[in-house]
């Protein structure tokens, strides 16, 4: 059982989602579920140029550790969990967050990934600045 997590400014390499999913593969697991959060080109009708993420890194990692602990309580059969959040500028169509969870059967990994991204958005101190064509706006990372 491994929890892997990182919140930092490193750009995700090409085929990073593949690397993250391989981190959680296990011979005893029939299911890997992934969620990839991506910068999209609009917010409430406004054209987004890019996003910029900022975190209270040490606290963010503490909060992600708590999420991993909760996942293991709720779904004891979950095997490996990987959570990677990128900081700084993230251009459109690039990933800012990748979550992968493995489990013997599919229901647990699917539910755990859903719980993980929802709780991450609600409780981990990461903020995003939406840069529009002529203005910007700081958001909690909820959306």
């Amino acid at each position: 059982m491994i929890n892997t997590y990182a919140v930092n400014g490193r750009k995700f390499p090409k085929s990073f989602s593949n690397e993250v999913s391989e981190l959680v593969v296990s011979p005893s697991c029939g299911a890997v579920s992934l969620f990839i959060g991506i910068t999209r080109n609009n917010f409430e009708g406004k054209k987004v140029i890019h996003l910029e993420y900022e975190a209270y890194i040490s606290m963010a990692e503490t909060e992600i550790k708590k999420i991993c602990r909760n996942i293991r309580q709720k779904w004891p059969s979950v095997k490996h969990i990987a959570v990677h959040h990128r900081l700084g500028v993230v251009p459109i169509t690039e990933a800012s967050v990748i979550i992968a969870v493995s489990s013997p059967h599919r229901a647990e990994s699917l539910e755990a990934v859903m719980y993980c991204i929802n709780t991450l958005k609600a409780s981990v101190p990461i903020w995003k600045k939406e840069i529009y064509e002529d203005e910007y706006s700081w958001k909690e990372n909820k959306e």
Partner: protein
Amino acid sequence: MRCQVSVLYFARSAELAGLRSETLSVPRRITARQLWDEIVRVHPRLAVIRDQVVFAVQQEYVLLGDQLLVLLGPEM
């Protein structure tokens, strides 16, 4: 009795305060709301985000209420 606390600012609060971290001297016995008020005294521009601010002490979220904080570490 007062103590030194290290205050970190993120996102919009960093922009409004004009800095990302500083050390403030505050009473050791203080509620969350009083601590926020101390911070706003130093950085009046922060007043506008009072209703949205996410506030954490020793890496634990706290509401801006009357609960007494235990300020131990250097970090707030």
